[in-house]
């Protein structure tokens, strides 16, 4: 079920109406679980079995970690984490395994390649892992006031809600157990932050439906072999457009998730913070898909030793985290290359930061932003063209077709649809130079215009890019 479908709007409207009815007050989590199950199984009811399996595994193991014998807590947590990772590996990486390690026509290889990828599995298995790890970390247990002195049934309901909560189950933001579970309590209509929800929803739908869904029809031509007929300027414009599209698509999704969750009284973490103004790769990863990068930092980079075990080990840790992060996105070697490219950039940046002192002025800042953006944009090619040979061919075409002509039918719409995103980032950069009263005055006009554009200028509906992960 897409966030921009009528079914979704109907589901939210009906759930919202029932949710705040006084007789439902004590059953709100159950209602949300029910809505989440409807949402998740709308297109493929069989997938509900997998989600239920994940919920049961995580509920049992985390409950044992939380309340079982102290001696076996680590074993329970490790078992739960392994079960999550095995589930993810089986469904997500079997096709790659079958393709890479079995000859063509082999029945085992064929079976592995035929295993379907259940939507959202990368996200909800990570939620399971945060639940287990947070349960195990003793300092976090204190935060689980909601869970204290409650029955296993109550615990199961809370866990089920945490894992299946529909605004975030398919593509995040990956909320941590210690952030979400304490929020589970009776919600009241009067507590809704309407302005916050409204702004998140309007901006989210604008980014998705107006920007991303329209840009996708221009960036379509990045596909092989169509890019071969385009000039360098057109190719650069398309690459720029794809960067804007992927940001708008995912940031839009995250904002809608935040807005919808807010309507039910839950705060999800911000997932994007103007990533394309980043002056360094490390800064980029504090602004892009924040919930994933903090997850990887907290649950992988720190346990590996982070930067506490010497320089070489820090570089290795960065590479491990980013390559695994790349693999998390998809079961193809190109995603690993993408992760490697980002890991290498982070490692080189860290190495150079200690050696070279760059002067600070506006020109240098602009150059740094342009460099990070260009590198990130070229790396996105690996998302758009999963065949590595096609990426190389794209770059070769870009170099070979340098001249001043360009395809205006592609370049012009990309320029038009990218313009609001450029302005969006620029306004953030200039945020301290504009007065607050001025902003407040303009806010309704800006959101009014965005809403007008959603109504009149939405592109053809398309699945969110991150759904494939």
């Amino acid at each position, binding site marked *: 079920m897409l966030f921009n479908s009528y079914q979704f709007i109907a589901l939210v409207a009906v759930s919202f109406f029932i949710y705040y009815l006084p007789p439902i007050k004590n059953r709100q989590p159950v209602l949300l679980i029910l809505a989440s199950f409807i949402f998740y199984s709308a297109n493929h009811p069989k997938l509900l079995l997998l989600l239920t399996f994940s919920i049961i595994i995580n509920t049992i193991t985390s409950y044992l970690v939380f309340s079982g014998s102290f001696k076996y807590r680590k074993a329970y947590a490790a078992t739960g984490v392994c079960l999550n990772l095995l589930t993810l590996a089986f469904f997500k990486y079997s096709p790659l395994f079958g393709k890479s390690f079995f000859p063509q026509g082999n029945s085992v290889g064929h079976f592995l390649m035929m295993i379907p990828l259940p939507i959202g599995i990368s996200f909800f298995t990570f939620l399971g892992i945060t639940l287990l790890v947070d349960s195990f970390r003793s300092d976090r247990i204190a935060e689980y006031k909601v869970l204290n002195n409650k029955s296993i049934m109550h615990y199961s309901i809370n866990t089920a809600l945490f894992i299946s909560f529909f605004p975030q189950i398919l593509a995040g933001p990956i909320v941590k157990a210690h952030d979400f579970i304490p929020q589970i309590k009776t919600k009241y209509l009067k507590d809704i932050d309407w302005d916050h929800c409204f702004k998140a929803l309007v901006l989210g739908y604008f980014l998705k439906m107006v920007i991303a869904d329209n840009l996708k*029809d221009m960036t379509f031509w990045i596909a092989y072999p169509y890019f071969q007929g*385009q000039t360098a300027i057109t190719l650069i414009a398309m690459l720029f457009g794809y960067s804007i599209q992927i940001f708008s698509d995912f940031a839009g999704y995250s904002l809608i998730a935040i807005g919808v969750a807010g309507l039910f009284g839950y705060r999800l973490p911000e997932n994007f913070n103007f990533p394309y103004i980043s002056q360094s790769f490390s800064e980029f990863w504090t602004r892009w898909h924040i919930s994933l990068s903090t997850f990887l930092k907290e649950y992988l980079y720190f346990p590996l030793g982070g930067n506490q075990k010497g320089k070489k080990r820090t570089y290795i840790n960065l590479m491990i985290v980013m390559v695994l992060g790349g693999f998390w996105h998809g079961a193809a070697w190109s995603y690993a290359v993408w992760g490697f490219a980002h890991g290498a950039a982070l490692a080189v940046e860290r190495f150079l930061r200690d050696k070279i002192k760059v002067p600070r002025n506006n020109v240098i800042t602009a150059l740094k932003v342009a460099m990070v953006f260009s590198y990130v944009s070229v790396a996105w090619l690996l998302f758009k063209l999963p065949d590595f040979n096609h990426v190389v061919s794209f770059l070769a075409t870009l170099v070979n077709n340098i001249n001043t002509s360009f395809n205006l039918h592609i370049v012009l719409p990309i320029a038009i649809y990218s313009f609001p995103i450029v302005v969006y980032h620029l306004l953030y950069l200039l945020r301290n130079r504009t007065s607050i009263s001025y902003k407040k005055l303009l806010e309704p006009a800006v*959101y009014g215009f965005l809403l007008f554009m959603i109504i009149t200028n939405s592109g*053809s509906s398309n699945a969110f890019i991150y759904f494939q992960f």
Partner: protein
Amino acid sequence: MIKKTIYITTLLFLGYNLFVSAIKFSVTPGHQWQDNIITAENYIYEQNDKKIVIVGSSLSVRLVDDLLPKNCYNLSFGGQSAFDGLDIIKKTDSQPGIVLIETNEIFRSAAEDFQNGLFMPIRYTLKKIFPALQEKNQPVCLLNTAVFWSLPKIKDLLVPGTEKKIIANGNSKANPSVGNDIKKFMLDILIADHSKPPHDSIVEEQKKKLIHYKEYFKEKGIEIILYEMPIDEKLANSKLMESVRKLICDVFPPNQYVFLQIQDCSKFSTEDGIHLDQTSAPIYTSFLTDIINRYRSGTTKKSLQKLCTEIPNDNKNSALQHCQTILQWFK
């Protein structure tokens, strides 16, 4: 803040709706999907009273509108099939006199998403009431059109007589050799695709649909002309095309229906093997127009039918001469 925002949106929307209702534009679509929706919506909301309707795929999109007969609407869609147009004619309950059905992509079914999007009850009604919601009236589509309209004028004003560096039609010609690579690549794919006849189940399925439309149009008194767009000669007599012809002749007996085929496709040139290029498209359009006019002026079906079976083996080397020869012979 929410109330103010909604007031502003309402004002903007009503004002814009008034603007697009008052001024009619001929827009430049941003991309193929948008072009398809605009073509469909123009027919659904404004032009479903046309007496001649052409339904087809991207092959027929190449027909030049200005050269088609008056009162004719080209309801062909890039990347889709004749069934999309046929479905639209039926759903709008329109009553053209003649429907021309392109047969090349007849094994392709109607695009479900496309049809659902066009005829979703709430959306359909809203678009009818508020033209601002129609695809062609999207603000960015109008902006796009304005730029395309004004750019050559500004350019000529600034630098009169200079060669245009902006290539505004499809793939740029910056590197012709690369263009040829794509052409060869596409043709190879098409040759492979055309070398196999479709699965029997697909043939049966499409046959049922064609019979359904044959009966539907018969009941409504709508005439049908079938035509095959000229394609690369390497594809013209492929197994796939033979299956197409067999299916058409099974459903529409040659003694009752007109089925136009160009016997010698080598006279036409294509961009990628199936889409006529800028030289051949106007020639074929004129030819088709001439056939339609003759058909309407009472030429017998039998005479027209000869076109698909007895085209003379002339020695002319261009599509134009070829079409003229066919028409002269036909007289």
